[in-house]
C-alpha cells in the first residue's frame, strides 16, 4: 500500500484485514505487515509509511512485492496527482507489477476528484476504485481486483 501521508492506507488495510475502523490519525512509521486470506491465496499486506515533507517513500519496502495498491485521498486532489510520480518510483525499483488505485474517503463532502483528474488516472490503464475505509465501500473490491490481476499475471 503506497501513497502520500494521511490518505488512508492503514485504515484500508485494517478494514480489509480486521474489519475495523478508527477516526484517529496515527502516522505509520516504517511499515506494518498484515496477513489476509483471499480465496486460496494468502495475501501479505505491506502498509508502507506515506510520502511526506520530511521523507520520500522508502523503496526498500517495495522489494519482493507482487502487486501494488496506490492510495490517494479523494478530498485532497494533490494526493491523486501525486500518484503518477509515486508509480514512477515503484516501477523504477521493482518494475511494472499489477496495480490498482484506491481513491479513498469517498464518504466525505468536498470530493475533489473531477472528470479531468479521473481521466488522467484512467489514461494509465489503471483500475480505479472510489473507496471508503470508514463505511467499507469498495474495500474488498480493491483487494480482490489486485489478487485477480496478480494471479492472471502468474498464469
Amino acid at each position, binding site marked *: 500500500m503506497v501513497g502520500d*501521508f*494521511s490518505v488512508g492506507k492503514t485504515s484500508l488495510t485494517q478494514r480489509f484485514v480486521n474489519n475495523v475502523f478508527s477516526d484517529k*490519525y*496515527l*502516522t505509520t*512509521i*516504517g*511499515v*506494518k*505487515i498484515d*496477513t489476509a486470506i483471499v480465496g486460496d491465496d494468502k495475501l*501479505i499486506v505491506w502498509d508502507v*509509511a506515506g510520502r*511526506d*515533507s*520530511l521523507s520520500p517513500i*522508502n523503496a*526498500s*519496502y517495495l*522489494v*519482493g*512485492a*507482487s502487486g501494488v495498491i496506490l492510495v490517494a485521498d479523494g478530498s*485532497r486532489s494533490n494526493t491523486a496527482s501525486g500518484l503518477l510520480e509515486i508509480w514512477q518510483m515503484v516501477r523504477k525499483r521493482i518494475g511494472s507489477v499489477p496495480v490498482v488505485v484506491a481513491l479513498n474517503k469517498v464518504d466525505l463532502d*468536498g470530493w475533489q476528484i473531477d472528470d479531468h483528474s479521473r481521466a488522467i488516472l484512467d489514461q494509465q490503464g489503471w483500475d480505479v476504485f472510489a473507496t471508503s475505509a470508514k463505511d467499507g465501500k469498495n474495500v474488498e473490491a480493491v483487494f480482490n481486483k489486485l489478487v485477480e490481476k496478480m494471479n492472471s499475471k502468474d498464469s
Partner: protein
Amino acid sequence: MVEVNLQQQINAQLFDKLQLAYICVDSSMIVVDISDNLSSYGYNDISIGAKVEDCVDFMFGFDAQTQLDLPMIESPSGITIAVSLLPSDSSLMVLISNASNQAEQRQLLQQKANENELLVERQEKLLHQLEQASQQLEFKNQQLEEASRLQTSFLSGVSHEFRTPLTSIIGYTNLVEQSLKSSADKKGCDPEQKAGHLRAVQRSSRHLLSLVENLLDHGKLDSDEIVVRPKEIDLVELFQDVELLLKPLSDTKHVEFNINLDIGDSAVVLIDDSRLKQCLINILGNAVKFTDHGSVSLTAELLDEFLSIRVEDTGPGISADDLEKIRLPFWQAADTGKAGTGLGLTITERIIELLGGKLEVSSVLGEGTQVSFQIPAPMVVTHESSKAFNSPQPLSNMAVLLAEDDHDIADLMVMMMADRGVHLTHVENGALALEAMRSNTFDFVLMDIHMPIMTGHEVLVALQQENNSTPVVIMSASTVEAGRVKAENLGCYDYLIKPVDVDDVIEIMNQVAMNTDISHRP
C-alpha cells in the same frame, strides 16, 4: 585464545545491548540457525528446517541473494525492529535489532509535521472557499444593484408613460369644457375642433389602457395566466384601428407611417384580436417612439392561413449586445432619452408564442430595426346567414337591464346605448337586479361583478337555481382568468373586460336577438 574469548564476550555484550537477533537460512531459504531471543520480538514459530517465509511474514518475496536494509518494521510483538539481509556465498543472514527508540522519536516528529501540513491544507481550502463565497456575494450584489436600477428605471418609465397620456386627457378635456362654457356666447372652438380634442382624449385613454394591460400581463407571465381566445375578426378593420391609433403620434413627429396589406378584400380569420392588437400596438408604438426621422412601415400578408407581420423603422437601431437584452422584462437601453416600462417586448414575445408564432428582431446600429412574426390565421367562411347576422338588427325592442353600482359608468353606458337606440333599465346592486328580473321579463342583462348587497356571481347562482335563462353578460374590471371561468361556470352568456366597447355589447345583443323573437314587443 584470550583474544578470541574477549571477542566473544564483546560480541555477546553487543548482542545483548542492541537486543540483536538473527535467522540464518541456506540457499533454499530453509532455516538453519536462529538466535534464542527471537520470541522477544514475537517470532515464536521459527524452527530449524522450516521454510523461512512460512514463519516470518516479511521474508516472503526474498531469495538467498537479497541484500536489503528495512529500517523500521513492526514486529508481531509490537516492537519496531530494524532488519538487515546479509547474503553470503551459501547462506543468508537476517539480522534483527530493536529500533523502537528511533521509531518513537520519529513517530512524534512525523505526527506533528503531518498534522501541521494537514492544518495548512485545510486553511488553504477554507481561504479558497471564503474567496469563492466573497465572489458570489459580489455577483449577487451586482445583480441586486442592477435589479434596483431596473426598478428605478421602471418606476420612472411608468410614471412618464402614465403622465403623458394623462396630460393629454386632462388637457384636451379641459379644452372641451372651456369650449362648452364658451359656446353659450358663440365663442370657443368649432364642432370639428371639439371632435378632434375628444379623439385625442380617446387615443390617450386607449394608450393608457394598453399600458395597464401590459403591466397586468407582466404579472401573469410567470404563472402562465395569459390566455388567448380566438374569435372571428376582420383583419382589414383591425389594421385600420391600429393605424387610427398610431398614425397621429407619428404625424406629430413628422415620421411617415405606412401600412401595406396583402390580405385580400375580405379577410375574416379566427384570431384573438385584442391580443394581436396589443402586440401590434407594442411593436409599432416602440418603432414610432424611437424613430425621429424617416418612416415606420407595417407589412401584413395572409397566405395559406398564416398571417405574416413585418414592422420596419428607420430609427437608431440596436447594438448587437443590446439585441440580446431587449426581450428581458424591465430592461431599457440607458442612453436613448426615451422613457418606458421596458415590458412591451417581453409581453409581446410571450403573446406571440401563445398565438402560435415566434418573434424575430433584427437590427444594425444606425440602420433601423425590423420586427417580424408569423401566426396561424385560419380563414372563416362567411355564409349568407352569418352576413345577415353581422348586419345590425333593430334592438330598440329589446328589454335590457343594467346592474352597475358605479354611477359614472352606468350613466355612460345608458348614454352610449341610447345612441344606438337601446334603452337600459338601471339598478345599482345585485339584489335589485334579481328583484327586477323576477318581476319583469328582460331579453338581456348587463351586469357588474363587484356590487354591494349582492355580487354578480351571487346573482348568477340565484338565476341558475330559479332556472332563469335570461342571457347575462358580465362586465368586469378584473382580468384574472379565474374570475371569467367562475362566471362562465355559473352560466353567464359572455364576459367583457372594462372599459367595455359598446360595439362588443351590440354584437352580443345581435346574437341574442337572432335567437329570440322580439318582434311582438311594443
